[in-house]
């Protein structure tokens, strides 16, 4: 009986998602250090090179790495979709994306055209390979439920975001930053946040929240319409921004209303969950819900203040996406380690709670939240920026530690082979 075949058949090799998870917090650390060494007034301007570089260290280096990496793991479970040649695809797109994002950050900071060209090729090919592989695997899905629809919609937006991003990077290479650049940059950022990240999270939440916390299921209206309504809102907003700029507020209101409704629903479902546990992942769901609510409201009010608060909006909504992603990492990494080891026949493996030190996870959460609150108040008290950046950097170092810890358990168990117990499988054979 091919035992390892059973598990590798249903799940990709553990290295496929884990290489992304191990790298992502390092970009978080880099972002924290860059904030530390940058002046508060420079960061107030969303179009300053420093702001763009820091934003992309987080959005590409941290968020997209984890989101795309976890897709390799989630698609087989949530949708029965298997990514073609998952080992090869993730390996090469990972290398291309790492080289691409580092070159981009360095290239933009130093205005180095060669680095920007390398970034253009690396990020363009890396993202397009990964997204195409994900899209191809989604084509094979037969049971197209709300979660799969959400993921598919977010992948469509992701293609547009990448193409717009490449156009923006090309403007730096050709040294031609014109008015179209500003319009595309605005659409690129809004679609990336709401079209890719928020819609992807909504799709996955429909499934994950009721199941893992035994919370009430989402209503059929919510599951059927919300993704569609937000997508329509994003297209309306795009058309208004392009042709009737004075009416963009209506597009924003449309998007913000449904996003806020989602944030509130998450809070309520969580309050009605049947499982009594309240671990750091529940705290992250709560903080995500608060950040998203505040962020979507401020995005509307920002319209009346001539976009003075757009960076604050970015911090709040970024706080929402980061909260969800970090909370998810705390569940997924130890589980993957446990699942792969158990499927190989190792029986006395630490439980998933034992793989990550609870106190370190709590410290990581507190430092992370404190840093975001600090970033917001540093608008009024610029002195707060440095200490907040430090807090953010340490929280990312702790996160890296918390991701490495389970991976070390995996490596150590495989190396020392404490107990290779086949009896469970023998018993199974007899039962059949």
């Amino acid at each position, binding site marked *: 009986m091919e035992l390892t075949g059973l598990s590798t058949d249903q799940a990709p090799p553990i290295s496929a998602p884990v290489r992304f998870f191990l790298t992502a917090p390092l970009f978080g650390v880099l972002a924290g250090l860059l904030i530390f060494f940058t002046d508060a007034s420079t960061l107030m301007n969303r179009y300053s090179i420093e702001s763009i570089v820091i934003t992309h260290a987080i959005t590409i280096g941290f968020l997209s790495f984890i989101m795309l990496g976890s897709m390799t793991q989630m698609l087989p479970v949530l949708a029965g979709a298997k990514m073609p040649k998952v080992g090869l695809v993730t390996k090469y797109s990972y290398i291309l994306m790492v080289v691409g994002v580092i070159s981009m950050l360095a290239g933009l900071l130093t205005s180095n055209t060669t680095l920007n060209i390398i970034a253009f090729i690396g990020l363009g090919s890396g993202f397009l390979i990964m997204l195409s592989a994900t899209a191809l695997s989604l084509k094979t899905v037969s049971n197209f439920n709300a979660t799969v629809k959400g993921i598919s919609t977010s992948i469509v937006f992701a293609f547009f975001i990448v193409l717009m991003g490449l156009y923006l990077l090309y403007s730096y290479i050709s040294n031609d930053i014109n008015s179209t650049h500003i319009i595309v940059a605005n659409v690129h950022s809004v679609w990336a946040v709401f079209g890719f990240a928020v819609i992807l999270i909504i799709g996955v939440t429909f499934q994950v929240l009721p199941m893992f916390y035994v919370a009430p299921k989402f209503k059929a209206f919510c599951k059927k319409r919300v993704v569609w309504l937000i997508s329509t809102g994003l297209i309306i907003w795009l058309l208004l921004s392009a042709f009737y700029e004075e009416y963009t507020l209506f597009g924003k209101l449309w998007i913000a209303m449904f996003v806020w409704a989602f944030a509130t629903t998450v809070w309520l479902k969580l309050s009605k969950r049947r499982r009594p546990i309240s671990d750091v992942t529940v705290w992250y769901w709560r903080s995500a819900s608060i950040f998203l609510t505040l962020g979507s409201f401020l995005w509307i009010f920002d319209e009346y203040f001539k976009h003075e608060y757009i960076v604050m909006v970015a911090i709040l909504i970024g706080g929402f996406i980061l909260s969800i992603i970090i909370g998810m990492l705390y569940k997924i990494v130890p589980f993957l380690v446990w699942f792969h080891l158990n499927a190989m026949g190792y029986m006395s493996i630490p439980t998933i709670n034992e793989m990550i030190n609870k106190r370190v996870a709590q410290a990581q959460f507190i430092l992370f939240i404190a840093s975001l609150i600090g970033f917001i108040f540093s608008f009024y008290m610029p002195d707060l920026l440095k200490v907040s950046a430090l807090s953010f950097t340490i929280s990312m170092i702790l996160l890296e530690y918390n991701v490495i810890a389970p991976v070390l358990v995996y490596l150590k168990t495989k190396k020392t082979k404490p107990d290779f117990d086949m009896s469970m499988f023998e018993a*199974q054979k007899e039962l059949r």
Partner: protein
Amino acid sequence: MNTIKEFLSTDHSRCDEIFAVMEEKAGDSLADAKVVCQEFKDEMERHFQMEERVMFLEFETKTGMTQGPTAMMRQEHAQMRTLMQQMIEAIDANNKDKFFGLSETLMILLQQHNMKEEQMLYPMAQQHLAADSERIVSMMESLIVE
């Protein structure tokens, strides 16, 4: 009439509810949770046997797939049986941390297992066994756990 998919999906939710009650009780006192933990284990065993001794067999006979999705699901059932036994042992040893570590591990394993069944296996089974759906559901309902 319940379809195979509806019948077994509803049973998943029923087991989840017992799981939640068990954790709640265990939070107050581990010793008090033993009865409900045993109940949870028994109900899960019943669910596993409804699948392994009835639905999976019918599916395997009809499709000829014995090493496909049902083999994977059987393996995960075995993993869960071991975890539930360890949970009972943790209660006997009055080790709360161990118990909650195991219950969290079981919860994630269980839910990703349920997702795979509800998203893939049950719709496939329903498709292949539609004509016999009523008979299979009634066989599962009347199953006596071994």
